[in-house]
């Protein structure tokens, strides 16, 4: 089915569905239409998984059509083992978000649902684009729906947060645009594969690397350009937080794998220390910051930054290992760890934000001190929340463990101290997450409002239950995911270790 244009369907079906939703009326139509569109998109995206051939790194499901001929820009789509799981993550998350907003969103629900559907299509475009300008168009277009979602349905300080979010990410990406144009002038094409093979001088590579670092570093976000994230998360509605944490941050990590490492390998190697330093700072320092938060959403937002530190660490720890060992043997584990961490963080952080949303809908506060003893009133919810919290701390058996463990294991090969600092997350992460659980879920009921809480209904149980299953399955049996992306990651390592310097 959909032979030859599956990816286009995954991009345009949600966008057109979003427009239909927009016109289907606030009272009745919007919710079912949006759910239908997102569910259909999700099931269609499963065809990517079933039809995917894990052998080889070549792009699959390729589509190609000339788009802007005077610049040789093409509508060129394709997925490999890196982008395919991320598209599935996106389509799944959108279904959950539509469900999560079903009763909660009372103000202009049609526009709300439409914004998320359009965003879904655009994000699929980001992961599928094989032309760098097409990538950039989707990359930027994604900001518009998010800007509106935070601005209209956000909290009290939403306007500050959404403008900060927009300008931060816009600022990050414009330098990337100049870099892409520079490489276009060298390569004569905007195709990502052509840019990956063009030879560049060291100065050019360093500058291009820095521009990518700003673009993707803001997105991930990495310390010290992370400050937009807590604001955006806290102010965004639950759905916005979920898509932001679960999918949008992954675009940063994806960018490093697709752009930085293959396009400017020499600069990546030269500046790997910088990225590793930034990642370790995120893991350690931001972890401590998470510890002192009073706002649940802020706490999870900071914990996201710390966890995403593992992703970038896993990607770049490759270079010190090569410097130490002289070969790239064993580095694959780091990249795999980073990728699994991305997918797993998608489930866990999405689930955490949904849990906070569940509480917020009932209590209308995110202050940790307002809670306590929730488990007495909401046992089902408490069980799920504790599961996700455990996954967040990286308990073996949950998906949170797999990625972090692989990255830490790899870092030992590079340097004991890198591994040591990365390992501190096991303590810090456990500290802030368990303390959160202790203060919110357990203990005696002190707030009379908590005493009136009602446990999660079927809809909420379904959403959280689906995520719980994924967290456990990925934690116990990560092999299918590892297998799917294996060859693509091997290829990235090959590219990252092959010098592109101009002689």
């Amino acid at each position: 089915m959909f032979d030859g244009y599956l990816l286009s369907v995954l991009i345009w079906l949600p966008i057109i569905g979003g427009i239909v939703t927009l016109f289907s009326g606030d009272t009745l139509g919007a919710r079912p239409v949006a759910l239908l569109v997102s569910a259909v998109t999700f099931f269609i995206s499963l065809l990517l998984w079933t039809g995917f051939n894990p052998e080889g790194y070549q792009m699959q499901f390729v589509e190609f059509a000339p788009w802007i001929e005077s610049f040789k820009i093409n509508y060129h789509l394709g997925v490999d083992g890196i982008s395919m799981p991320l598209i599935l993550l996106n389509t799944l998350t959108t279904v959950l978000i539509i469900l999560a907003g079903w009763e909660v969103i009372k103000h202009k629900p049609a526009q709300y649902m439409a914004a998320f559907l359009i965003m879904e299509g655009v994000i699929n475009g980001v992961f599928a684009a094989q032309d760098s300008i097409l990538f950039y168009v989707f990359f930027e277009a994604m900001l518009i729906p998010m800007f509106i979602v935070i601005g209209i349905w956000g909290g009290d300080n939403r306007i500050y947060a959404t403008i900060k979010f927009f300008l931060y990410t816009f600022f990050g990406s414009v330098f990337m645009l100049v870099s892409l144009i520079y490489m276009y002038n060298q390569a004569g094409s905007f195709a990502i594969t052509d840019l990956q093979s063009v030879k560049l001088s060291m100065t050019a590579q360093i500058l291009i690397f820095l521009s990518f670092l700003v673009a993707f570093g803001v997105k991930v976000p990495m310390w010290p350009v992370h400050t937009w994230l807590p604001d955006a998360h806290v102010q965004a509605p639950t759905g916005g937080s979920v898509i932001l944490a679960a999918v949008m941050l992954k675009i940063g990590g994806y960018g490093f794998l697709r752009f930085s490492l293959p396009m400017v390998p020499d600069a990546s190697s030269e500046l790997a220390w910088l990225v590793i330093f930034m990642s370790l700072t995120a893991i350690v320092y931001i972890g401590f910051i998470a510890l002192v938060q009073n706002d649940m959403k802020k706490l999870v937002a900071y914990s996201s930054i710390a966890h995403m530190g593992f992703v970038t660490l896993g990607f770049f720890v490759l270079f010190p290992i090569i410097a130490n060992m002289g070969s790239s043997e064993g580095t694959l584990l780091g990249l795999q760890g980073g990728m699994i961490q991305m997918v797993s963080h998608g489930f866990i952080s999405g689930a955490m934000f949904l849990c906070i949303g569940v509480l917020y809908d009932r209590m209308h506060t995110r202050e940790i001190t307002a809670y306590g003893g929730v488990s007495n009133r909401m046992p089902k919810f408490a069980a799920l929340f504790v599961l996700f919290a455990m996954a967040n701390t990286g308990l073996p058996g949950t998906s949170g463990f797999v990625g972090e463990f692989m990255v830490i294991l790899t870092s030992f090969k590079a340097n004991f101290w890198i591994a040591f600092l990365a390992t501190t997350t096991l303590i810090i992460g456990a500290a802030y997450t368990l303390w959160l659980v202790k203060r919110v879920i357990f203990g005696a009921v002190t707030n009379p409002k908590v005493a009136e809480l009602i446990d999660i209904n079927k809809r909420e149980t379904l959403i959280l239950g689906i995520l719980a299953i994924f967290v456990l399955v990925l934690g116990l049996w990560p092999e299918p995911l590892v297998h799917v992306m294996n060859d693509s990651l091997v290829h990235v390592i090959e590219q990252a270790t092959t010098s592109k310097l101009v002689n």
Partner: protein
Amino acid sequence: MQNFTLIPMQFAVPDFLPALPEIYLLAGTCLVLLVDLFLKDSQRFISYLLAQVVLIITALLVLASFTGFPFFESLQLSSAEKVTTFSEMFVLDPMARILKLTIIIITIGVFVYSRDYLRSRDMYKGEYFTLGLFAVLGMMIMVSAQTMLLIYLGLELLSLSMYAMVAFRRDDGRASEAAMKYFVLGAIASGMLLYGMSMIYGVSGSLHLEHIGRFMASNQVMDNIGLLLGLSFIIVGLGFKLGVVPFHMWVPDVYDGAPTSVTMFLGAAPKIAAFAMIIRLLVEGLGDLVQGWQQILAILAALSLLAGNIIAIAQTNIKRMLAYSTISHMGFVLMGILAGTQTGYSASMFYIITYAIIATGGFAVVILLSRKGHEADQLSDLKGLSSRSPWSAFMMMLFLFSMAGVPPTVGFYAKLSVIQAVVNVNIIWLAVFSVVMSVIGAYYYLRAIKLMYFDKPDEFDAVNNSLINVKSQWDFSLLLSINGLSVIALGIFPGALMSLCVWAISSSI
């Protein structure tokens, strides 16, 4: 002394055909002028309709020279060809055809947008339309001019019409002040331009751009003080007309003081003509001085980007904000030109055409918000527009995102192409500078979107305490929708217009 003849001494009857649209437009305008004399105030729509018909027929005539209608084919006037007439003073090349067509279409749109605005403010006069038509004629002459003399003639025809249009609300102090300012500064600019032209003429011995070009090619020009001085004066004049820093002082005042419908006209079509003028003068005439003007234009562009974007943040008046935004956009247009390559010229052409479309739409929304007795020129008038009129708020959002250069709107591709042009000639500092400035610029566009979407409306009817509705005629709404959707359509399929610009430049210069 080389002997260049100014005008060949021969009295063959010139070929009128390439200038047919202009000739028709002149006749048609005179007809509107005459008919209007005999109309009562209540019949003014006849002048309006007549003006539109004249414009449409002119557009068809331009289009006819494009597609090679049988009538033209018999005269071997194929569209890729460059035809000159009137002793080679007038040229019809692909670039001229496309720019003329754009100018006319923009003007038709401006007339549609302004009709209701004029009617509700007692400015619904035939003069508005005849002045507009004369301005279009001036612009068309500028676009097709092949001698400095004709450029100047076209420019003055345009400017004089514009001065009068700015002063159209004659009992309004601010409008008169704006018109006065515009007139004085415009006259100085024309003087500068003329002075520069006379110097170039003195050195090269010809007013004809092609002859000047030939003279340049066969002489050492970069150490010719007279030429460089002439070039500087010409650039000052062009800078004034285009409204780039540091010759931008008139722009905000005139944009603010003029009636909004005139601001809309002023902000769109004449920019296209100014682009053509720069291409004719600097590229066709003084192309070999590229090293000379490249640096000057680079500085003008950088200053415009800086001042335009930063000062716009401080504005509370939407017309002034759009005026500063225009200044920064003209900086982008200069970036393409200063690259000095065909890619650069076509990038600028793409930029100016799309900018004209966007700017017209932006001002249309300002007109839409205003009503009799309330000009709606403050940013706060945008508050809560998405509740009052969701569709026009959406259109305005498209225009604003397009001005900010956010894909998938067309503004992004315009910026992409000019940045590509400067990176291509290794002026990377300017490319980086321009993108930083566009991030700063994004802030004030976002602020306007914020007002429309995130703030609550505060315009209540005093009588029944309901929201004041946004009302418009069917043709206004239809055009606004087309205008807004074209921004997104051109954003998704920019290829055709881009190829058209590339083709026009490569077969004209």
